[in-house]
């Protein structure tokens, strides 16, 4: 498997305080109708790794075993929520990505030289593309260093 994408997020019973904060900020923006925001950290791991190895990285390094869970999502799964992904533009320093490479090496796993990180958001409620773009641009990313993409819910 070439280049893996791992999404790390809180277990359903654990409060996602970051998501809750964003929800407040959305209300402050004057946008009503958003019911919930859940967040994930996304890791794009560059290198040829088998599924087992990616699983080890997810469980022993990236996801906290008590409060978090992870999925190895190479293809975008359909979601019933709006999904929004923010990542750094090429060339922008990604310190967390660099640290992740170190962690992977310490686990004894070879062949990974680059990890890029980003954030994923699931938004539920009364939304449309325009609102999603406003939320992204006003709150969740900065055009100068990041890019974003989003997908409408699949019913």
């Amino acid at each position, binding site marked *: 498997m070439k280049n893996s994408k791992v999404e790390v997020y809180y277990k359903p019973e654990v409060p996602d305080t970051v998501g809750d904060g964003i929800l407040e900020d959305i209300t402050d923006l004057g946008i009503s109708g958003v019911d919930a925001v859940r967040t994930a950290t996304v890791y794009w791991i560059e290198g040829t790794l088998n599924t087992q190895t990616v699983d080890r990285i997810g469980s022993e390094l990236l996801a*906290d075993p008590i409060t978090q869970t992870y999925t190895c999502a190479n293809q975008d799964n359909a979601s019933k929520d709006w999904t929004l992904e923010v990542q750094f533009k090429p060339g922008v320093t990604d310190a967390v990505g660099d640290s992740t490479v170190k962690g992977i090496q*310490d686990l004894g796993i070879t062949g990974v030289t680059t990890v890029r990180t980003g954030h994923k958001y699931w938004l539920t409620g009364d939304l449309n593309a325009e609102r999603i773009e406003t939320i992204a641009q006003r709150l969740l990313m900065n055009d100068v260093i990041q890019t974003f993409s989003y997908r409408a819910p699949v019913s």
Partner: protein
Amino acid sequence: MMQPKVLILRTAGTNCDAETETAFQLAGAETALVHIQNLISGKVNLSDYHILAIPGGFSYGDDISAGILLAVEMKHKLTDELNRFVGAGKLVIGICNGFQVLVRTGLLPGTDSSAEMTQRATLAMNTSAKFECRWVDLETQESPCVFTKGIKPCVYLPVAHAEGRFTAPADVLADLEANNQVVFRYADSGYPNNPNGSDADIAGICDATGRIFGLMPHPERFLTKWNHPRWTRIAEVQGSGSEEGDGLAIFKNAVNYVKANRL
């Protein structure tokens, strides 16, 4: 009389090392600040020391989650050294980031069965979702912890962290209570005195032997009475003949334990 030797572990992002060193020196120990690289390379032997202190800070930026990268490094690069050190009955203390590291290595709360280190609890994002820098009242619990032997029933110490909410599955929490492994609780369960929303108001725990101790509050920041945030107004603080802060007793206990047990 031999002088207990303390290894204060450093790595990129460690930042409470100097005051932790001062605390152990005031307590009568000989100290060394050692970069983890020098333990891994074998330049420094952990077994030459009696106490391992993992100080506060942001090891490797706390990237991914607080303390995980240092924990992974210790678990995979120092496995034997750590097992031998702990097995020899020596002492380990982790403060703030150091506590996060001990929990993520599995050294805390620890198991009584195997040498396999598994993470059984965690220190999650504060419920306030913010970094919190404040002083808190702590209740000292009945525990086997050698670091808190005989100290005051109520201790006042500062916390400064964003990821300090101690949480664990119900069975692990029940074990902790059954084994008296809870060393400190936040004295008032509401925010802000429980600054992070910890389960059962847990601020610090030890392993079953009492020789491995981790806590979120910073005893090394209360070494003199002038560190107390209200030293200008509290008669007891102002008037007491002693210039010693509450935090120092924890370090003295460790040093005295090493002396008493001739480790």
